[in-house]
Structure formats: structure tokens, C-alpha cells
């Protein structure tokens, strides 16, 4: 994807090489996400009552109004009574993810730290794997990948997550939200807050609730810079020059705190949850929090 080519350019040999190159990134992300998800034990799922679903729940005597087709003849043949086979009520929730692919996410202040984008994708994919195992339908916001069930969706998600966006700060995708679904937005929210507000209010209008997950690099919290500096955005579109960077620290932190407060206010207004994560902390705890947040809300919704 880094070097887009028109279809004409693909001769079979290079097509395969490029495909392998692209595919090489998938197993890594997938494996790590699977590994991360494997540490979370699924529990408290399933509705424990009769309803629409695949799994057997119980046999009950047929009553008036039951369709004749619903009678389970194998069970009924064991006696005189007619039995209806009930299945466990399973509802599948649709969860829509938006993981910021913007250039600002491709930043790590230290070679030992993962990039924000890396961490965000890992969390997104691991969360998807967990949800898909729980039988939910998972997809992306927008029209590129609508929510679907099953393991193949993991591969499709992984593929979508591997695409980089060239825009510096990409706005949340808020189109084609399914009413009353859940949504997870993972980003550093460094861009324009108006677009976030638009997305959230639009979601709230449709009854979509979810989680706003704020991923930051430790240096963005600490601002450990001094001296004469020209700051540039990762995409290179913005720049700011200062003579004494350490003087800016206080005001920068103030603005960051304001931004966090604003995000929290928006969440409170729309009934979303706000979470903050730093790339130098464990991905495991972040995943647990995300899953818990989503699950708890799901329970309330149900």
C-alpha cells in the first residue's frame, strides 16, 4: 500500500511478491492480537433463557399455538407427549470499530515503545477477536466493512487495519452507523474536536453507544522538550517554532487537559465511556478495560 500501482502494473510474479509482502504484516498483528485475546477468559455471555439461537436450551411440552413444525419428533417419539425443542436466546450485538489510521498515530517517542497506531490496531483487533468469539458481529464504521460474524471477519479486519492513512489527523468515520449498535473509537484525538463532536452526537441520535479510547504517547503527556525547537506534525503539514520549548510545557499541558475534559464532557453527554491509555503501559490491562467497558454497557443495554 505504501507504493500504490495501477492494475496494469501487476505482472503475476510481482503481484505474488507484493501480496506476500503485504500478507507478511498480517500474521504478526494477528498472532499478537490472538495472543492478547487468549489471555481473556470469556464469561457471563449467553442469555440463559430460551429464544432465538443455535444452541440447545431445553425441551418443553408443546402448547397451544406452537407450530407443528416446531415439534421435535425424536424426543416426542419416546413417549405420548409432544415436545418442542427450545433453543437458547442468543442475541448478536453489532460492534463497530473506528481505529484512527491518521499519520499522527504513527509516532513513538522512543524506539522501545510501540507506535500509537500499532497499539491502537492491536487493541482493536484483539477486542474484535474477543467479541467475535463471543458471537458478536464486528465491523468498521462507515461502509468499507459492515459488521459480520465469524472468524473470517478477523482476517478482513486485520487487512483493513493494515492500511495507513496519509492525512495528518483523520476525523472519526461516522457514516452508516447501525442504530442501537455499539461503537469503539480508538484515536489520539489530536485533530479537530468538532468532528469528534459531530460523530458522537450523530451516534447518540441513532442510539449508538460505546467507548472513546484515547491513546497517547508518554512524551505527549510529559512534553520533555527544551531549547529552540521546530515542532512538526508526523505528516509534515503543521509546524510550530519556539525558542524556549520548556516555556511552552505548562500551557501545552493545560491545553491537553482541556481536551481530555472536553472529550469526557462529550462522552457524559452522549452516554459514552471515555478511556485513556499510554503506550508505555500494558496492552493487556487496556484490553481488559475495553472489553469490560463494552460488556458492562452491553449488559445494561440488554
Amino acid at each position, binding site marked *: 500500500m505504501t507504493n500504490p500501482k495501477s492494475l496494469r502494473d501487476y505482472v503475476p510474479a510481482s503481484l505474488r511478491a507484493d501480496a506476500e509482502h503485504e500478507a507478511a504484516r498480517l500474521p504478526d498483528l494477528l498472532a499478537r492480537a490472538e495472543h492478547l485475546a487468549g489471555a481473556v477468559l470469556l464469561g457471563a455471555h449467553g442469555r440463559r433463557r430460551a429464544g432465538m439461537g443455535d444452541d440447545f436450551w431445553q425441551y418443553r411440552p408443546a402448547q397451544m399455538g406452537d407450530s407443528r413444525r416446531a415439534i421435535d419428533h425424536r424426543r416426542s417419539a419416546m413417549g405420548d407427549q409432544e415436545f418442542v425443542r427450545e433453543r437458547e436466546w442468543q442475541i448478536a450485538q453489532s460492534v463497530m470499530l473506528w481505529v484512527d489510521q491518521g499519520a499522527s498515530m504513527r509516532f513513538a517517542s522512543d524506539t522501545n515503545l510501540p507506535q500509537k497506531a500499532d497499539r491502537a490496531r492491536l487493541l482493536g483487533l484483539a477486542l474484535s477477536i474477543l467479541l467475535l468469539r463471543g458471537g458478536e458481529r464486528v465491523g468498521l464504521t462507515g461502509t468499507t466493512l459492515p459488521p459480520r460474524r465469524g472468524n473470517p471477519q478477523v482476517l478482513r479486519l486485520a487487512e483493513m487495519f493494515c492500511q495507513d492513512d496519509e492525512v495528518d489527523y483523520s476525523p472519526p468515520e461516522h457514516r452508516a452507523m447501525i442504530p442501537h449498535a455499539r461503537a469503539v473509537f480508538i484515536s489520539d484525538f*489530536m485533530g479537530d474536536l468538532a468532528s469528534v463532536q459531530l460523530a458522537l452526537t450523530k451516534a447518540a441520535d441513532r442510539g449508538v453507544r460505546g467507548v472513546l479510547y484515547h491513546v497517547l504517547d508518554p512524551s*505527549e503527556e510529559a512534553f520533555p522538550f527544551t531549547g*529552540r*525547537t521546530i*515542532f512538526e*506534525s508526523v505528516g509534515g503539514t503543521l509546524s510550530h517554532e519556539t525558542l524556549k520549548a520548556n516555556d511552552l510545557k505548562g500551557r501545552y499541558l493545560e491545553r*491537553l487537559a482541556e481536551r481530555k475534559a472536553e472529550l469526557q464532557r462529550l462522552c457524559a453527554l452522549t452516554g459514552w465511556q471515555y478511556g485513556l491509555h499510554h503506550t508505555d503501559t500494558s496492552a493487556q490491562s487496556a484490553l481488559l478495560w475495553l472489553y469490560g467497558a463494552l460488556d458492562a454497557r452491553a449488559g445494561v443495554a440488554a
Partner: protein
Amino acid sequence: MTVLGGIGFTAPWLLIALFALPILWLILRAVPPAPIRRRFPGVALLLGLNDDETVSDRTPWWLLLLRMLAVTAIILGLAGPVLNPEVDQAEGSGPLLIVLDGTWAGAARWSQQSEAIEAQLTRAGRAGRTVGFIVLARPDVPVFQSADVWRTRLAGFTPAPWQPALADIDKAVEIITALPAFDTLWFSDGLAFEGRDAALGALQRRGAVEVYQTAANVLAITPAVYEDSVIKLSVSRATPGLEREVTLQAEGRDPAGNARILASVPATFGQGEVIANAELALPSEIRARITGFVISGQRSAGAITVVDDGLRRREVALIGGRNDRESLQLLSPLHYIEQALAPTADLIDGSLTDVLPANPDVIVLADIATLSDAESGPLMEWIEQGGMLVRFAGPRIAASDISRIEEDPLMPVRLRAGGRSVGGAMSWGEPKSLAPFKDTSPFFGLTIPNDVVVSAQVVAQPDPTLAGRVIAALSDGTPLVTRKTSGQGQIVLFHVTATAEWSTLPLSGLFVEMLERLAISSAASSPDAGDLAGTTWTPLRVMDGYGVLSDAGNLPGVAGPDLINAAAGPQMQPGIYGSGDRRLARNVFGVDDTLTPVTWPSDIPVRGLAVAPEQPIAGWLLSLSILLLLADVVASLALSGRLLSRSNAAAAVLLALPLLGQPSQGQAQNAADIFALEATNEVSLAHVVTGNAQVDEIAQAGLVGLSDTLFFRTSIEPAPPTSVDLEIDELAFFPILYWPVTSDQPRPSSEAYSKLNEYLRSGGLIVFDTRDADIARFGASSPNGRKLKELAAPLDIPPLEPLPGDHVLTRTFYLLQDFPGRHNSRDVWVEASPPDVERIEGMPFRNLNDGVTPVIIGGNDWAAAWAVRRDGAPLLPVGRGYSGERQRELANRFGVNLVMHVLTGNYKSDQVHVPALLDRLGQ
């Protein structure tokens, strides 16, 4: 050279460049440090934030000052500044004679004197004068040569360990008188000696005389004296002066034979005194090891006094016959020997077997005839190694059959039965007196008192060897004292008793002197010339002017009295002299000597030796400028905020390291630390580097594969595996070492083996893999098997057995019966289980040993079966088709079991007991 304010400049015109400094100031001031570019997503939040104060984008004044100082230092440095520039002095003309005392008194400041001479030679060379040298301690006709020639030969002059004798001065005067006119520079050592005025007069007649003499005082130490159980030392100085403390050091050898300072004692000159005394009390063991005393910090022959036997007290063991009656003390067979030796020797009492381990110098047996085998054996050994056995005859020896038919090894001669008695009441003849000592006898020169008579003795059997062994005889020729050497030691027999029963010898002074000559006792006081009359002493080690002892080579011997009386000189060099077993030290400075400072006539100019040499300081200034520029680098970095950012920290450290001067240590420490950190952050499997690239690669890939298997199947999540070099790397961090055996790998060093043994003892596990599927049948060993035996021989490995079916390895994670790798051989060897462990009825397995087996030996080439390529696919084929894949799977399972076994020990062994135990409890 231009001199400005006491500093000379070789290139003064360069100083004009200093006028350019203000211009540079203006230019530098206008150029601020460049900004740093930084990627930062948070820049969106920064937009619109302006700097509070408008920091002028000009260089701060202190940075400018730093740079100006650096530039100034460079300009000054290049201008060639010189400290103490030599202002031209009036040079003389004509030949120049340099006169040296050349005695030990100048040795302490010889290098200073050489520098002063060199400075004078430089001046003389500049003036084109020829120079000659005359050394008063060794006068010789001077050769007048150019100063440059002499400068190269200056190092050849060394001080002599004596003062010039009158004869030397006479010779020097003769030489001087024969020379044409010249000027004189006299480098004096500061001590007066006879004939100095005559020499001065002769020199003044030839031309102007100038004297160079150090202001420092000459110190000398007198020979040490042992009196009243303390060593008395005294130090003299030439001129009285202020109170001064010097340290005297006793030099000697430690028990290991290395030279070292054994003791030190301070001595203080009082105000205006020229002699300082000190006393040193030392145990005899240490005293015996002292080789000399020196004045600390003074390097001259006068400041050292070497020690002969005078301080040494021999250890003498006295063993008398069994006292079977309550006898009077005067009748004790040892009484007279004790009296004779007590003042000068350390006596040891006890039985023979008790005293031998103390290794005394001498053992005296008084009238003891027979010795048991347990005694005579070690005694003989002690004699062979240099011991001296002195035996006295007596009634018991006379009555015994010792050395009668065969010569006893512990007797010098054969004895006749019974002995003889002369001059008694029942015999004819008179008691015999002693014959004069022959010149081959060690007693030669001793005077024999008339009252020494012998009335009874044991008689030696005539033998061909007898004549050579007699060292004292009676007037009728019968041997009185006989001696033979045995190994490095000797055996001496007095044919009379040690008491006054058989002779009056023990009552006389001769007895003491004889013991002294035999070096049984050592002289309490230094001998005088009379004592040494008739003896000749060979120089063993002689001293140079610095007081360093060296081998005497083939210097001729000197007569005994000369050793005491004659003045030191080329024929009588100070040092250590020996005669037979005795040692005498001849020191430069005697007990009665004094140091007299020289007084020069008032018309002779006397100068000090101190020379303030020209000192170019350009190097210092240039170094200073480099330091300032380095400081400027750091300051500029700090200003632009690049100094403390993390990426630049390493660079800053690298910059700072050469300044600290310890880069290599820091980096080495760092490398070891990084290795330790990487190895301990996570569990890491490790393999031994064999040196065979292919085997190492497969081992590495195998451990990568095993790590992956562990990662995906178990809760063990190992870090990437490590390759371990046994010689360099620390092993303690790794729970398991995989060691593929190749037939050509080098044997680890003994340090590496001690590390490996330490590793095994502290719970490590080594998996030896001969990779040939054959090893376990130890008999028919393959090349790799033989190599394994060779490699493992120095290792501390317990007894082994083939892996039993109920070993915990079969069930630590997977249940296994086979342990295949790329080969499938059943035989894998582990630590043998204890022999007394029985399988309990109803239990599936025995309760086996605790802990982890320290080694596992097999030949199945496990690493090859585990090995994966970078993309996770198997690296090497195993077996064929599906069964091959099954074998690979089993190999992986074995690997998992192996690592589980290492990390959990016998945990699984206990766990499987639980159902069985519960079962039994229930019944």
C-alpha cells in the same frame, strides 16, 4: 626570542592576530544556535502559543566569552610561549674541566647533578668549548672533547661506594698539573675528605674554579647492633640543622622469599644535632630474615647498611641422654653447651621428633648412641637438606656397638670398642693436650690454652677416609673432633663428653670459640681485626654507589683484618663477604665514622644545583583551547536543547568518556550489563557456540522453534534464544544450555570449566547432543561420542543411567515414552536415581530424586527437529511423510517437557501422587 613579562615568545608576530578578536566577537554574536527539528503529533495543541519573552536570537555573552577565550588560547599557543626563557649569560672560552666527587654521598641527588651538568654542557657547546671530566673517586686522565659528545656519555657516570682516598687525590693532582690551562667546574657531594685542599690548589693554578654543590644534607646509617634484645640503629647527618625525622626500614625476605620491608622505625634528629638513634625490637624469626637497613627515601650506599650473621641467632636443639637418676645440674650432659650457647643462640628443648619439624640450624646430641628408625630417618633427611648434627661421645656411646663394624650414616667415623682412658689412676701416661690445628681445619688460628687436657675419649678406627675427616687431634695424633659432610649438611663428632668428665675442654674458652667457628653459635659482637687474623674472605655481593647489592663476580678475596680496618676503595668494596659458613658485612659507613661537611674558601663561588629549565607552554595553551571548545560544544547543545534528549544522551556520554579517561572499562562494563539484562529480563534458552557455523545456526534455529512451541502451547513465553560463548559469557542466567557436540570443537579453558561446574552445582541443566543417534551405546562410540567424553571429563557430573520409564521427564507436560529428535534412538541418559528407591505397590512410578538432573545426554539431534526458518516453517526434513511429521511433533513435545522439567523441577512428580494418596487415605 622576545620576552614579554617574563614569558618569551618564539613567534611574537602572531600576537597581532589578537586584534582580530573584537571583529570575531561581532560576527559570532549575530549567529545564534540552530534550532532542532522534532516530529511531534501534539503540535496541533501548540499552534498559536507564542514565546512569553522574546528571547533575543543572539548568542549569550558567556558562550561568546568561552569562544573568545578558546581563540585567544589558540593564538597565544601558536605564538610559542616559553616559561623561564634563558637569558644569555656571559660564556667563557678555552677548555673546561668538570670535576666530580663521584662518591656515594652524591648518589641521592645524582640525577639532579646530571641535569645541572647537562645544562653546563649545553652552554659550553654553545660557546664551542671542549670539555674534560675527572672523577676524584676514580681519577683518570681527562679527554677534552666537544660538549655534545659528553652529553651522550653523561649517563655513564655513576657514583662510587667509597670516598676518594689520599692516593686518589695525589694521582688527580698529578694529572691536573700536567694539563694546559683550563677553567674548572667542581660538582661537589658536600662531604669533606683528606686532600681536597690540595686538589683545589692544583685546580686554581690552572684557571678559574666554580663549585656546584647541593644544599641538601647528606645522611648515613651506621651498622645495626644487637644489644639487650633490641636492634640499635643510628643515623648521622653532615650539617646540624632543624629538627628532622627520618624513617629507617628493615629490609628482608618474607617467608615466601620475596624482598619486602619487614619493619620501619622513625629516628629524629634534634635541633642542631647530627646523630639520631632508634631502637627496634623484633621477634627472632623476623630478625633472622633481615638483610639490611635503609634510610627511607635516600638512595645511596651510605644510607644502607647490610647485615651479616651478627643479627642472626641460630636455633640449636639440645638433646641429652635420658637422665635415669636425680643428678646434680652440673653433671647434666648439656650444662656446658647450654652455658656456651645461651648468649648467642636460641635453644630449643624437646624430644628429637618434636624439634625436627621446627627445622633448627643445629641439633646437638650429647652421648646418645642409638636412634630409632622413626628418628634416624627424618634426622638424616634434615641433615641432607643442610642441617648440622653435633654429637658428643660419652659412656653410652663407648659402651654401644654403634658405628663399630659398618660406619653409621649418622657418625663421621667408625669407632673402636670401649674407647680409651689416659692419665687416670689405673693407666700409664698423662692426660693428652691438643695438637695445633692444621690449616685445613676450621679451627685454624685459634690459640690452644695449656690447661686443656683430655683424659678419656672414644677412639676412631683407622680408615682410608679418616685423615680427611679429622679437624682436631690430640698431641699423639688421635682424632678429637671429626667431621663428614652429608648432602648439604654435616655431622660433627666430639670424641669427648660435653661435660668436664672426660676432658677440660668444655671448661675452656676454646670450647666456645670452636663452637663459633663451627657456626654453631654466632658472634655476639662484631669481630675485631685480631679475631680475623689469618682468614681470607671472598666478596659474595658488593654494593654500588646507590646501595644496590649485586653479584661480586670474580673479585679477589681480602684478608680478614683488612675487612675491618682498611678504608673502602676499589680493592675493598663494601658488600657481603664470606669465609666458609660465616658471613661478614662490610658497610660504607662504619660505627665510628662521622660526616664532615666541606668548607670552601671564600674566594670560590659556590652555586646550588637547582636549574629552572626553559618550559614551553604552547602545548598547555592549545590543550586549554581544545577543552574550551569541547565545553563550547556541550554548552551549544544545551542551549539548543539537544543535550539531554534521549537520543543524544549516548552521544554526550561518548563525548564525556574520553574526558574521564576510562572508556574501555565503561564500555566493557556496559556490554556485560546489557548481556545480563537481556538474559534475565525474560526466560531465555541458550546453546553453546561450537565454532562450527552450520551446527551453531541449526542450534539457534532449533531453540527459536522450541521457544515458539513453548510460547504457543504453554505459559512459558521465552525471549529469543541466546548463543553462549563459554569463555566470555556468564552462564548463571540460563536455566538450560543446549550443547551440540561436534568432533572438531575446541576444548574450553579451565576457567570455562570452573564456570560450567559452578553452573551445574547451582542447578543448571546441560543437554549434550552428539547428533549421531549412536552415543548412548557408549562402547562403540562415534567420533562425536569420543569428543563428548573428552569434553565432559572435567565436569562435575553425577552417575548416569538410561532414562527410566517413570522419570519425571516423561510427564512434565506431555506424556511421552520416546524422545526422538531428527533421529529416533531410545537411549537418553540422565542422572541415576538413588539405588534404594523401590516402587511402592499400587503407585504408577517410584518417588524419585528431588531436583533437576544436571545433564541430559543423547544423540537424537533434537535441535534439527525443532529448527524453524524465519517464517516459522520447519528448517530440516524429519523422517518421511506423515510419520516424519509425527516424529517432529514428538520432538517438540520432548522439548516442551524438557523446559518444563527445568523450570518446575519435580513438581509434576508430586502432583501425580495426589490421586493415589487420596485413594489410599480413603481406604
